[in-house]
Structures are given as structure tokens and as C-alpha cells.
């Protein structure tokens, strides 16, 4: 078993790279594998004879590549945010979506679009509004669930569910009065990588990389927090400060993902779980491996989403939810069996 684990871990990076190339070659227009390699190598700066048409180049570089990379980056973000949420709330069945962050962010974005503020502050308007709404939700939920001695998981989940419903209802309310933008908002809310541009990718990328790195350096704090606040403090963790930083980064990662790709649930739940089986609970291993795992999951989910009933596209969020719903139930049943549910 240990041998298999090690092999998986060694090959997972290689597999991610391979997956990106394969994903680029899949689509309604057939482009050969070597052509894709050639186009990419040419872009990086290798002198290669042009064996491709300019149409193929546009499809690869302007349509497929940003989209594929976006799915990888967003997958990584959501998985890392999931690791942070589970560590922070000391509960393996929490993810940023379950506790209402995503619906708050989605609500903010919808409001922004309907009111026509979408480009008030340029490109950063939507991510900013998304972040503010998410932050508002998480701060209230966090404060509510914090009792004197410890975090009450029951209150956390209840408050999370309540906020999810509240913001979803508010979003529905907005949709109801916005006839001409309904389809746009709906397809956005279901989660999709359709029409990703390089600029979008850059923005998401510059959030994801530092966010993940900061969380990585707070991995030890997260590890120790598993013992509870008082205990962690006596070991020397500045619990309040660390929590605040981790909470902000987690919300930033999630809300940015939501801002660009809508709600894609359950990645942050499934991947940390799966990776914990492979690398253990140490967050300094869990964070990088979850990032890769999350990237892989969303990459393939998106490949399915855009090719299963091509030329029609299925919102990728539907896929992850179809996968994640049963998985969540499985987790609850497992926890119930071991008698430690909440």
C-alpha cells in the first residue's frame, strides 16, 4: 500500500502535465497530439517548422489552453481552500461551499451584473464584490459559531446552511427581476469555464499562487490547531492571528474562483479527503498535493462537460455536484458508523 502511495505521489505531477496535453487535444475539432506539442513549444520559443494551420493555432492558444489552465488553477484553488476550511473548522465534512461562502459570492456577482456595475472598477470589480460578499458571510458565520471555549460545529453548519439559503433566495429574487440577463447569470451560477480569456487566467493565477504559498507556510499552525485553540496557543501558535489570515486567504481563493467560474461545489470536500488518505493529515504535504489533485479533477470534469454531448456544453458545476453529493453522503455515513458525527 505504501509503495502504491509513493508511486501515485511521484506520478501525480507528471500525470497533471500529461492530462493538460491530452485535454488540449480533445474537442469538436480534431488536432493531432504532436501538433499541439509543436504549437506550445513554438510559443515557448523553440524554433519549429509550422506544420499547423493558423486556425488550429487559434483554437489551441486562444480557446483551449486558457480554458484548460483555468480549470487546473481553479481546481487547485478550491482544493486548497477546502484544506484550509477543514483545518480551520476542525471538521472533515466542511468545505467553503457548504458553509455558504460560495452562495454569498455568487449573490454578490449576480447583483453586480444586474445592476450594471460589472465593470465599474474595471476587471477587478467582480472578483472584489465576490470577495466582499464572501467575507461578510464568513465573518458572521464564524462569529456565530464561536462559543467561549470552542467552535460549535452544529452552529457553524446551521448558520452556513441558513446563509446558503438566504443568499440563494436573494439571488433568485435578483434573477426574477432581470429578464434579459437571466440566462447569462444562471449559466454563470452553475459553474462553467466557457469563454475563459488569458486575462481572466492571469488574475486567477496571481491570486492562487500567493494564496497557496501563504497557506503552505501556515500549514504547521493548521496542524497544531487540530488540538483546539487553547492547546494550540500553549504550543505557541498565535491562534487568533493565524486563524484570521487563514480565513481571509481561504475566502479570497474561494470567492475568486466563484467570481470567474461560478459555483463549482465539492472539489474542496473530495480532494482534501482523498489526498489525506495518500499523504496523511500534515497540511504542509496536504496543501501542495491537494492543489495538484484539485487541478486534475476539475480539468477532467471540464473535458467531460464540454465533450459529453458536444457541441452542447454542460456546466461543470453540475458534474462536480453529481460526483460530490454521493461522496458527501458516504462521508456522513462513515462518520455515523464510527459514532462521531459532530
Amino acid at each position, binding site marked *: 500500500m505504501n509503495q502504491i502511495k509513493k508511486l501515485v505521489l511521484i506520478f501525480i505531477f507528471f500525470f497533471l502535465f500529461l492530462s493538460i496535453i491530452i485535454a488540449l487535444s480533445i474537442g469538436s475539432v480534431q488536432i493531432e497530439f504532436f501538433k499541439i506539442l509543436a504549437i506550445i513549444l513554438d510559443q515557448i520559443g523553440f524554433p519549429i517548422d509550422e506544420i499547423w494551420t493558423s486556425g488550429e493555432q487559434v483554437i489551441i492558444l486562444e480557446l483551449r489552453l486558457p480554458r484548460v489552465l483555468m480549470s487546473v488553477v481553479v481546481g487547485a484553488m478550491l482544493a486548497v481552500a477546502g484544506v484550509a476550511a477543514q483545518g480551520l473548522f476542525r471538521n472533515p465534512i466542511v468545505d467553503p461551499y457548504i458553509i455558504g461562502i460560495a452562495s454569498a459570492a455568487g449573490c454578490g456577482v449576480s447583483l453586480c451584473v444586474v445592476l450594471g456595475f460589472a465593470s465599474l472598477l474595471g476587471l477587478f470589480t467582480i472578483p472584489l464584490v465576490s470577495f466582499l460578499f464572501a467575507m461578510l458571510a464568513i465573518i458572521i458565520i464564524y462569529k456565530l459559531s464561536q462559543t467561549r471555549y470552542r467552535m460549535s460545529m452544529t452552529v457553524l453548519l446551521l448558520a452556513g446552511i441558513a446563509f446558503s439559503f438566504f443568499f440563494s433566495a436573494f439571488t433568485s429574487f435578483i434573477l426574477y427581476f432581470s429578464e434579459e440577463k437571466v440566462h447569462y447569470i444562471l449559466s454563470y451560477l452553475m459553474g462553467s469555464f466557457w469563454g475563459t480569456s488569458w486575462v481572466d487566467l492571469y488574475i486567477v493565477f496571481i491570486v492562487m499562487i500567493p494564496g497557496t504559498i501563504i497557506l503552505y507556510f501556515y500549514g504547521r499552525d493548521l496542524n497544531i490547531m*487540530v488540538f483546539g485553540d487553547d492547546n494550540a496557543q500553549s504550543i505557541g*501558535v498565535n*491562534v487568533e492571528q493565524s486563524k484570521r489570515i487563514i480565513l481571509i486567504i481561504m475566502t479570497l481563493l474561494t470567492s475568486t474562483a466563484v467570481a470567474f467560474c461560478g459555483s463549482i461545489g465539492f472539489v474542496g470536500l473530495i480532494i482534501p479527503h482523498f489526498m489525506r488518505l495518500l499523504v496523511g*493529515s500534515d497540511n504542509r504535504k496536504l496543501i501542495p498535493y491537494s492543489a495538484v489533485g484539485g487541478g486534475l479533477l476539475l480539468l477532467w470534469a471540464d473535458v467531460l462537460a464540454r465533450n459529453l454531448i458536444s457541441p452542447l456544453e454542460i456546466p461543470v458545476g453540475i458534474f462536480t455536484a453529481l460526483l460530490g453529493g454521493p461522496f458527501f453522503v458516504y462521508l456522513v455515513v462513515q462518520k455515523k458508523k464510527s459514532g462521531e458525527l459532530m
Partner: protein
Amino acid sequence: MPIECENISFNYWTKLVLKDISLQFGKGHLYGILGPNGSGKTTLLKVLCGILKSKYGQVVVDEFNIKKMNISDIAKKIAVVEQSTSIDFDYSVKEIVKMGRFTHIGRFSKETSEEKKIINELLEQFNLIELENRGFNTLSGGEQQKVIIARAIAQQSKILLLDEPTTHLDLNYQIEFMERLRKYVNDGIIVIIVIHDVNLATQFCDKIVLLKEGRVIAFGNREEIITRKNLKLIYNIDVIVRKNPFSNSIYIIPHKIEFPTSMRYDNNSKPKKIHIVAGGGATSKILPKLNDCDVSVGIVNVLDDDYILANELNYKIISEAPFSPITDSSSEELKTILKNVDLIILANIPFGITNLKNLEILNESNKKIVLFERNPIEERDFTEGIATTIYNNLKSKSNVKTINNLHDLFNFIESMEE
């Protein structure tokens, strides 16, 4: 003093939990904090390590006010082991012990080979090498406790605070655990432990703090602190304090006080004078309950169980050296006492040559006598019939009553007129 608190008061909302507490803890001692539930033990511990901040008074660690120290500096000086530990994500034993090194490793640096050495030494010291890759949640309670202590020791702090660490441990682990703490004390660490088990505390802690309702009732060496009076004050229960013959430490035996109501004398009435002829532990159930009477016991040998008990209860005792027959001077003493008593009780004791004199003196007395008889005299007679003869003679006298059970005995004493 490495750690002390001055005039600490602490309240949760409006409830005052600690009231004006001043304590000093120095090197070379194992401190035990004892007190009933809700007396503020855990709160005191949390104030001492800075997790709770008191509004009034201050905690001083190595000359620094703890409120002005940052969290990582406190962690370098004070390590804490909490009551029980459960974790939702399973970490390996090694990973958990490593967590104790948190303040010693920079946020952005990796563990050096020096760090790895420290961890391996600790794992070895705690016999955890074989378990190092096991998940914490798969360990037994004793093993888990060991891992948590190892984590605390990894902090290399000079002060170790523990909150009821032995509560979930089996007896053998408790002893092993407390012995380990003593070892740390000998290595120069100050160990302060909140503990429920008074006997465990008196066996291993050399200094005791007694807390009640947030106040320090007593603080000092265990022999001075663990007394019948103090424990009655704290736990509202009567105890017997004894010396453990093996370890020379003291231990307590709690017993309930349940006097028949009328046996509690009023201040204006005189207590009943009762003399008990005891021996061989036969009166262990009688003596404690006569607490409110004026009791004398004898003639017994020093070191006899009844002698020790009567001594603890502060009764008057007529005694003889161990294993020696009754001398004339104690016979006279007994006769003098018997002249003034309201009641004489002859307990269910065995008779030999050494204590036969008791029976003879009783035979001469015309006071009210109760023979407390559980076994026939023949079974208790080791004088080849002499005791039986006197006993039966005594039994036939008009001032003598035979009683067979404790209930009747106490009822009789209660109904007795002065």
C-alpha cells in the same frame, strides 16, 4: 521565583471564579492543585499559562509579567497538557511530537537535522519509536497521554502545567505517569498538576494547593496540608489520614459522616462519656461515629489498628507497648476513667493473655456496660477458657446488655439518658 501569581482574581462575566490568589512555585517541587469540582482549579491553570487573562493581579514568569509576553515566548517557558485530547484528523505520533517544536522552528524554515535528533531522542525516551508512524487515534488512552506529554516536553519549557492528566488512565499508567513527572522535577522542571485523586496527589506531589470556591485554603508541604481538618473543610467529608508504611507518604481514607441526629450534642448539654475496650481493628466501624461523644479507648497496644484509628480521631487512649501485657499503672488509669463514664462498650475483640486484664476490670465495674457481640466468646478466647468464664459472668450481670448489630448499638447510645 520562576513562576508566581500575585493577588489574582478572575471572573467569567459576573461570576468570580478566582479570588485574590497569591502563590509561588519554585524549582525542585511537584505541585498538586486539589479542590472540589468548580473550585477554580482549571481556571487557575489557564491563568497561570496566560490563556486566560486576569483583570486583577498579575502572573509573573521569570520576572516578566505574562500579559506583556507574546504567545511564542510564553510557550518557550510554559508547556501545558490539557485534560483530554481528541483530534478529528489523525496525525502520526511523530508528527504530533514534532508540533511541540513549533516555536523553535521558523515559519519559513525546514526542520534541521538538529531538530530531527531532538525528536528522535524524545521518541526513544518515551518508548514511542515503535509507534512513531501509528495514527494518534489508533492508540490507547495511556499511549495517547504519553504522546501528548512528549509533545509538551519537546517545547523544552522549564514549567509544565497539567490538567488532570491521570483521569483517563489505568492504575498502572497513573503510577508510571506520576513517576515520570517526578523525574522531570528532579531534572529541574517545575511541574504543576491539577488533580482529583487526593491519594495520588499526596503520594507524588510534595507541595499541595487546596482550593475552595476560588480561594486558596492552604498551600504548603503535603504533611501540613493534607489533614483531617483541611479535607473536611474542602470536601465536606470526614477522612482518616494515615502514613503509607511502604513509601512513608501519607494517604487518606474517606468515610461518610452519618450521625443519628440526637447524638449531636447541643452546646449547653454535656457530651456523653463513653469508654470502649477495643483491639485488633474491631472498632473501625464504631469509633468514627462516636465523634460527638467524649470517647476514651483502651487498653490497647500501640500500633494496634484501633490505636491508630483512635489516635486519628483524637480520642483519649490508654495504651501499652506492642505485644506486652497490661501493666498495673494502665490498669489503675482505666479504673479511674471508668468511674466517670456513662457507658462502657466492650467491642467484639479476641482475648489473649495480654489483654485479659480489660475483662477483669470490667467485671468489677457497676457502670452500664454493652457487650457488642458478633462472634461467640468461645471463638475469640485464646486463654484456654479463662476469658469465657469471666465474659459469661459479666453477661449475666444486671448492668450489662448484649447487642449484636451496629444499628441497635447506635440506637442504644442515642436513647441513653445522661
